[in-house]
């Protein structure tokens, strides 16, 4: 009952249909009254929609730019490091807590792991210094 051509009449009107399909639809339109009526109606509707064109802004460009610059300046004033850190705590407490415990854990590992060697190195340097003296 309904032709398959009817579904793409809009694309046809926009001229966005490839050559062979374009010819096929053109041929169909010559023989099919329903589709050519639909095409006319569609043309009218699209014309009407296109009358709802772009809006014109209310103020002028200078005002717009001034407001935009204000926003941009606000953005470049970055919060301090501590403030940012507190922000993380506030927004993502789990993540922040995880991060802090990870750092503490790393610190402990480092002190335990490296300290004996450091001690030996220290001893070595101290001996050398004594020898020189």
């Amino acid at each position: 009952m309904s032709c398959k051509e009817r579904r793409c009449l809009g694309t046809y009107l926009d001229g966005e249909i490839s050559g062979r399909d374009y010819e096929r639809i053109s041929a169909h339109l010559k023989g099919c009254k329903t589709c050519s009526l639909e095409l006319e109606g569609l043309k009218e509707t699209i014309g009407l929609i296109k009358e709802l064109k772009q809006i014109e802004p209310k103020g002028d460009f200078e005002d717009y730019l001034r407001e935009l610059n204000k926003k941009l300046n606000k953005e470049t004033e970055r919060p301090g490091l501590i403030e940012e850190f507190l922000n993380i705590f506030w927004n993502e407490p789990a993540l922040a807590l995880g991060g802090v415990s990870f750092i503490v854990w790393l610190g402990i590992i480092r002190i335990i792991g490296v300290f004996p060697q450091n001690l030996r190195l220290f001893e070595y340097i101290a001996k050398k210094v004594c020898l020189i003296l």
Partner: protein
Amino acid sequence: MEDDFSLIRRYIAGETACFEELVKRHWKRAISVAYQTIGDYEEAKDISQEAFTRVLRSISQFRFEASFSTWLSRIVVNLSKNYLQRTKKKFPLQEEAELEERATPCNLDDRLQMADLKDAINSLKEPYRMCIILKDIEGFSYKETARILDCPIGTVMSRLNAARRILRKRLKR
């Protein structure tokens, strides 16, 4: 006139004044796209400015493939969609008395028809409405519309066809 790409290149190279020129070229459309999507002028202006700040933040990642205007519009559309979701606002494209932008027909019949059309567009589901706004109202091409909405061009075609047929049926009544 110098094209957008070279303005962006010059901006990245340190000529900050070029950004102002980019804004000047695209601010009207940015406001318009947001306004058509959400139906509130002040919010639309805010969204357009937010879009420019985002553009500026990521301008070094611009890939010089699609146009600047599609890139900007994509950000504007996404911000507008977020706004609609956040506020659960339903009926954009309302008549705003102060906006004398549209061709306002003197004929009462025509005016009623325009009002009907706006109602009909408002009642479309978002993906369909967006295609009508971008392609038919804002005049983007199929390809640009597809890029802005981040979907295949075939999807834009079929949505646009469906949406226009719905609108046509609504107006015929």
